[in-house]
């Protein structure tokens, strides 16, 4: 064919003229750098997370005490879980805890962030100070608060008695009715700094122009907060809330150090329940079933989170 004839024929794109194998090689070559970028992370997660999870899933179908040979029992562990009042109690406590703790930390964090962003007196100090408890290890936080909350000689009750508020001096960690609330309180104490910092950054990101326009329009502080600040930081608010929920569902350390799941199993959460079943009762198979249940619950919530994020991003 002549040159013109060749040129006038429509030329199929290069990639369509390759076999699937050659296309794969091309894709790899073009994007090699990106694959290399993500490989270390993927490798670590597959080796140290995915593989063990698969093992855990399978261990849940056995009865095993660690020494005797495993005994395959199918879904019996899961059936038992469904009727185990201690598991259901732990589940209840965990869900309650995570919702309450998230509400508490995020609300308080929001209030603090808003206050600081409006340059209230001492803002620059608060900014640094309020995140401080987040940096204290949980075991230390737990041990400190156990002493502060000790009913006979602890700081809180001694202070209340001294201030004439004897009636308020409860047995904070010893009363099954309030122990969980106390733990929620300690969590709020420790972790409200985290949402605060994030929301503060988001609030300060609101452009100057918007703020100035609002000032010119003569809005009150309250209106500014509710109609400008909060709506504009909504996406961050939602993200941080969901993250807090996810992390709270996995809580273990605080309960273990402060109350060991007591009193009367009132602060038993899924994490402590799992630990007890595995290491104190030597029911490794059963404990793995608990782990699977936890994973499913959190997995579901993460999925919902993603949905929400997608919806929010679509709105923007």
């Amino acid at each position, binding site marked *: 064919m002549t040159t013109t004839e060749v040129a006038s024929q429509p030329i199929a794109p290069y990639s369509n003229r390759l076999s699937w194998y050659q296309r794969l090689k091309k894709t790899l070559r073009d994007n090699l750098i990106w694959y290399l970028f*993500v490989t270390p992370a993927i490798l670590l997660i597959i080796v140290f997370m995915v593989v063990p999870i698969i093992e855990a899933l399978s261990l849940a179908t056995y009865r095993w005490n660690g020494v005797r040979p495993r005994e395959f029992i199918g879904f019996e562990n899961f059936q038992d879980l469904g009727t185990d009042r201690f598991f259901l109690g732990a589940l209840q406590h965990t869900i309650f805890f995570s919702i309450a703790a998230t509400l508490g930390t995020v609300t308080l964090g929001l209030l603090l962030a808003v206050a600081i962003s409006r340059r209230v007196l001492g803002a620059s100090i608060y900014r640094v100070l309020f995140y401080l408890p987040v940096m204290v290890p949980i075991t230390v936080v737990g041990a400190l608060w156990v002493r502060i909350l000790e009913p006979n000689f602890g700081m809180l009750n001694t202070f209340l008695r001294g201030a004439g508020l004897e009636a308020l001096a409860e047995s904070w960690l010893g009363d099954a009715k309030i122990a969980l609330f106390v733990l929620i309180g300690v969590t709020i104490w420790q972790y409200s700094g985290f949402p605060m910092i994030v929301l503060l950054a988001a609030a300060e990101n609101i452009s100057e122009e918007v703020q100035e326009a609002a000032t010119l329009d003569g809005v009150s502080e309250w209106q500014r907060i509710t109609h400008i600040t909060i709506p504009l930081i909504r996406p961050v608010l939602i993200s941080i809330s969901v993250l807090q929920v996810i992390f709270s569902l996995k809580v273990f350390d605080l309960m273990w150090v402060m109350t060991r799941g007591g009193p009367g199993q009132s602060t038993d959460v899924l994490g402590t329940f799992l630990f007890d079943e595995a290491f104190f009762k030597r029911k490794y198979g059963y404990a793995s079933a608990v782990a699977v249940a936890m994973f499913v619950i959190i997995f579901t919530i993460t999925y919902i989170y993603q949905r929400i994020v997608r919806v929010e991003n679509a709105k923007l």
Partner: protein
Amino acid sequence: MNRLRHLSLVKIIVVVVLVLWAIIELYPILFMFNTSFKLDPQILNEPFSIGYPPSFESYARVWEGDQTGQPFLSYFMNSAIILVGTIILLLVTSTLAGYALARGRFPGSPWVQQGFLLSLAVPAHALLIPLYFFLGNLGLRNNLLGMVMVYTTLGLPLSIVLARAYFLSFPVEIEEQALIDGCSQFGAFWRIVVPMSRSILATIAIVNITWVWSELFFAQAFLSDTDMQTLPIAVASYRPAQMQASAAISQHFAIMALTTLPLLIFYFVFQSHIRKGMTAGALR
């Protein structure tokens, strides 16, 4: 005149509340340090007294480590090594992955992103039992490298989320300029973007540093040799010498204070960087 108008009642209440909250936030931490300077009888009988002159006896005993099986320094060094290793590995892997997810439009990228987000859902406890035996087979149990690997993996999901969000809001022009100037993709990343991203590096470090330093669950399960053990294990299994029933609480507080101090120091040094990192639209 204008000043007085702004000094509304609401503002005063807000300030009072903030100051109260600041006191409440600070008190337990100060209480810890204060108590570590006192001895038990004083601790129990005069809970509000100031520990002055400070008694360093408890710190001395803790340092000697006669009740923890190993001297304090051993636990401290193990924790420090694991911490440094984990943070470095985390920074490298999460920024690489986060950057790739933010910038790279490569096939499978939505799946990879999905995968990382779902790994957030994995409760660490679920991994304990299988990891125990798995690490044993790999010969990584009872050894600091194994802990670094495990901790890095546990910290990856959140760190990648943070890194990706950050890089999404990083101005593309800078890298484009670098590419035009003849830099490779990796070169652009390593030599241009990363040095300018100190705030996210600080943020990722700070977010992970506390839990890695104070992690107890996995450490206690995987590290059975006392000379491999970390600080949280020493704190948790601390028992008074049978000779020292009257110094039990004081020593406990001393060891807690020693565990917390490095974190607080780190925070005060790097806190301005963290704020900048959070400002750059993290968590969008």
